[in-house]
């Protein structure tokens, strides 16, 4: 390619897996710490909370994964990936050891409305494994440079069972921290679980966050999203203050291949972050 040509958006940049960590008891959710092999690539990869990137596995394909690390972290980018037995890419990724090389393309998509949320209360609602970009957001807001920009931060996070909660060490840290209120729940506890039990939508009703001067970010499987929207609307949150992240099968990540097209939007380009108001305007149901 000539130096005058624009960057080829299809080419992945090489990265090395610096560290892997298993997040859940079942062992199929892992966090990967990735380091760019080339300095220029690292410098160009400036992202915001809520964006995703394509993890590129030689021989298997590519997968769009939300970025889990904070934009302020230096030197590495983190992704938490669930292995699907039918997924060629996630299976291949999970079998790799530290030191292996893969490819990374991105960052893609839009981001959570961090600027609009300044000066407001932020409620974060997450379900199961869909907590990755929310973690990025929490880390970003709690950073000493940013904490004062936001008012109260409340996190409601639930998983099917205690073993399925991810980022356990961070959850424990945040529970002890001032400046953030943590409400952790599980659908069903075990013998050692001393915390709350209940589905996330029910817990949202119990916690009853106030909609005044507040934004709520909700991420979870389609069924959880569907049932969480109702209590949030009943509590008085307006649809343009309820923010979520959609998922669709993606191939190019740049709004060309058509996979993720919903209405006149591309989830990879106009999303994945949408307000509930925008979702109501989409022709197809998204749940």
């Amino acid at each position, binding site marked *: 390619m000539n130096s005058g040509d624009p960057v080829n958006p299809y080419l992945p940049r090489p990265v090395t897996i610096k560290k892997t960590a298993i997040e859940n008891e079942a062992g199929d959710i892992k966090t990967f710490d990735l380091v760019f092999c080339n300095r220029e690539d690292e410098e160009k990869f400036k992202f915001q909370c809520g964006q995703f990137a394509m993890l590129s596995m030689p021989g298997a394909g590519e997968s769009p994964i939300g970025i889990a690390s904070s934009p302020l972290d230096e030197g590495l980018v983190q992704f938490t990936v669930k292995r699907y037995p*039918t997924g*060629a890419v996630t*299976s291949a990724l999970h079998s790799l050891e530290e030191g292996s090389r893969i490819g990374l393309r991105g960052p893609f998509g839009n981001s959570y409305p961090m600027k609009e949320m300044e000066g407001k209360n932020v409620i974060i609602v997450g379900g199961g494994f869909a907590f990755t970009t929310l973690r990025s957001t929490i880390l970003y807001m709690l950073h000493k440079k940013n904490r004062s920009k936001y008012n109260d931060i409340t996190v409601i996070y639930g998983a099917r069972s205690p073993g399925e909660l991810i980022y356990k060490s961070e959850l424990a840290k945040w529970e002890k921290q001032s400046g953030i209120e943590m409400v952790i729940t599980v659908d069903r506890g075990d013998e050692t679980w001393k915390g709350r039990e209940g589905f996330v939508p029910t817990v949202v009703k119990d916690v009853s966050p106030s909609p005044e001067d507040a934004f709520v970010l909700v991420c979870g499987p389609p069924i959880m999203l569907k049932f969480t929207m109702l209590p949030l609307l009943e509590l008085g949150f307006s649809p343009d203050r309820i923010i979520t992240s959609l998922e669709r099968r993606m191939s190019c990540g740049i709004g060309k291949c058509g996979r993720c097209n919903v209405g006149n939007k591309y989830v990879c380009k106009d999303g994945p972050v949408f307000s509930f108001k925008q979702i109501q305007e989409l022709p197809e149901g998204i749940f």
Partner: protein
Amino acid sequence: MYSMEKIAAEIKESARDLISGKRVDLVIGYEKGSLALRSRPCFVSSVEDAGKLVWNSLCTNNLSVYLPRYVQKGPQKRKEDVKPVRVGIVAKGCDVRSIVGLVKEKQISRENVVIIRVPCRGVIDRAKVETQLKGNEVNEYKEDSSEILHLTTVAGEEKTFSKEQFLADACLECELAEPEDVDIRISGTAKQTFPNRYERVREFEAKSREERWQHFKKEISKCIRCNACRQACPNCFCKSCFAEQGKPRWVGAGTDLSNTMFYHIGRIFHQAGRCVECDACVRACPMGIDLRLFTQKMVKDVAEAFGYIAGLSAEEKPPLCEFGDADGQGLITTL
């Protein structure tokens, strides 16, 4: 004497009786298409709509491809919540064999299908008409009871032809044998003789290996991997086609010759003992690939090795599912 109108009238009457008598929920037949040389599938669920049904030599689709849809439940539906849909279906001889094949492979149940067997005397290949008329398009198609076609071109000329010269190759090589087990027989005599069965395959077999390979390569290179052949084929009902699997990926999606060849070889070999030569794949292909030669070769091999014709009886076991003393040994290779 072969009156299209008479046959169509009988089809309509059968459909009306079946629907009003609540023997079926739906009749699948043919209706007039949007172009002069097209008839197309039609789904009738009311007595009034039965008036749309037609019969002519343009009724080329094999309608049995739709039958498994009425057995499948949609997503989020529990098995108990699905009431079986009873379907009446207009079928030519080859189509009836398709239906029997689907019953045999447990894709549909016989009691939920009412087979309206129509006496077929062959259907027309549009491409042959286009070649004959040298690019002059047809505005109107009429066929009289002596099987003479009266075609009016866009320029206003009226031309007559005997249907014979435009019959599809599949019809010129028709198997002719039909299953006995049908529910309604529309009056009329189906075609009794077509002399050319397997002639083209034999000619092809007689060519040298190099010639055969070159011909296969040339034809298959035209493929754009649109999957029309597979979607039109009633036998291709797999929920997850081998060509679409990713883990492991058996065949790529592109038009690398090796990918395309593997796709077609796989699909055609999956038809062994099952293909009824309904020509659905050939007629669906937008690139005009000569698929018939290859599928018919498969049919001939099975007929010669096992004495088996697909779709004549639902009870007869498929040749690749069992063995018998009389089975030919020619297909076994020894190292």
